[in-house]
């Protein structure tokens, strides 16, 4: 789990959006990485692997490890560290192999 430390007190830094992590609304800074928002939310795992079902969390936060794959706005296997929060965004964990989706 991560905690936030004091932020710049300006408009860019104060602006917030609401996203839904596992259905729970949470206010996060505009433009933040989804992975950061998830880490701050206290979610204990973001996906379980399609091979053994082991739980995983974001690992590199720079787009190379693909550990932070989540279902974002209905699209499975989205990299949470390469996606920015948007107002109303829905972020879900992924258990095991991704499903097909019609999105």
């Amino acid at each position, binding site marked *: 789990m991560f905690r936030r430390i004091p932020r710049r007190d300006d408009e860019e830094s104060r602006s917030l959006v609401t996203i839904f992590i596992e259905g729970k609304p949470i206010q996060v800074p505009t433009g933040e990485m989804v992975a950061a928002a998830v880490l701050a939310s206290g979610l204990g795992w973001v996906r379980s692997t399609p091979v053994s079902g082991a739980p995983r969390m974001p690992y590199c936060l720079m787009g190379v490890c693909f550990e932070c794959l989540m279902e974002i706005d209905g699209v499975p296997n989205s990299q949470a560290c390469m996606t920015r929060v948007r107002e109303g965004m829905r972020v879900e964990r992924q258990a095991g192999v991704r*499903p097909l989706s019609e999105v």
Partner: protein
Amino acid sequence: MHADAVVIGAGIHGCSAALHLGRAGISSIVLEQAYPGRHASGVNAGGVRRLGRHPAEIPLSVAAMGFWLNMEDFLGQDCGFRRTGQVKVAEDESEMERLRQRVAQLRSLGFTHEEIIDQDELKHLVPAVSGHCVGAIVCRDDGYALPFQTVTAFRKGAEAAGAQFKAGCRVDKLVRRGSIWQVQTSRLMIEAPILVNCSGAWAGGIAEQLDEPVPVSVEAPMLMISERVAPFCNPVVGATGRPLSFKQFENGTVLIGGGHRGQADPARQETQLDMGGLAFSARTAQEIFPCMRNVRVLRCWAGIEAVMPDGIPVIGPSAKFPDTFHAFGFSAHGFQLGPITGQIIAHLAVQSETSLPIEAFSIGRFLE
């Protein structure tokens, strides 16, 4: 080094030939420029199909299927074969009519393995298929196998039957000394009375050295594979009016091929991909399986394959030398035939004949 036979090329056909020869009591040395299964045999789509074959190939393909359905007994090893069925969809009525004519033609030749199914049955077999597909042919005993695992299993089977494999060994020169072939390679000299040319994309060069030049071209069929997806498609699916090969493996990954070619560089043993051709395959796959739209492609590649002008292989004795045989030019659909090709070669080597009709595959058809 000496053996009864020297087999050039450790792909599926070379390994199978060495295995059948070994089991018939003929020792062999298999020469491979890279490693067994490095090229087309190890990296192809793994389709095990009788469906849609050229009429001349059907007797061989049907005979090969006997091996595939009993592979564990035959090899004592798993080739990853899954009897999922193969389906060829018709995207409109005119394609459906072509399929009906095809099946009627096969019936008249006495073959019943291809079967017409209607849209309801297609939806039942392949629920994810697009609604515009009106029907299909199905071959229920067809399926797929894992190519590299298959080549490895045949190699091990051949080794168990006494064959020796020499990897990293490129053939430089063939010299005929009386009734013996002297094969000079990049690192060894092999002598054997029997010579088998199973060298795939490089077989044209060997044939030329045997004074049997053939118009073989080298192509690089491209494939792509996806991330793992929850199971949604059991059979292997092809199309009628455009090239497609589509299958989901048990691990969830989806393999898409479709006949589009990259550029092959056989001298460097490398291929270049053509992204435009891959995009075309992706469009075909997406139109027949709309549910695939947001599934990610992780890797594209191409194999190096020998293609004959008439689209069927060269299988049979050399027209110029005794105890010398060819099996190449499978034109991107040879994987399924692997088990039977080796048997044909062994039968020809041992008893100078085979019970299967192979006249259509004679190298003589390209020689004056």
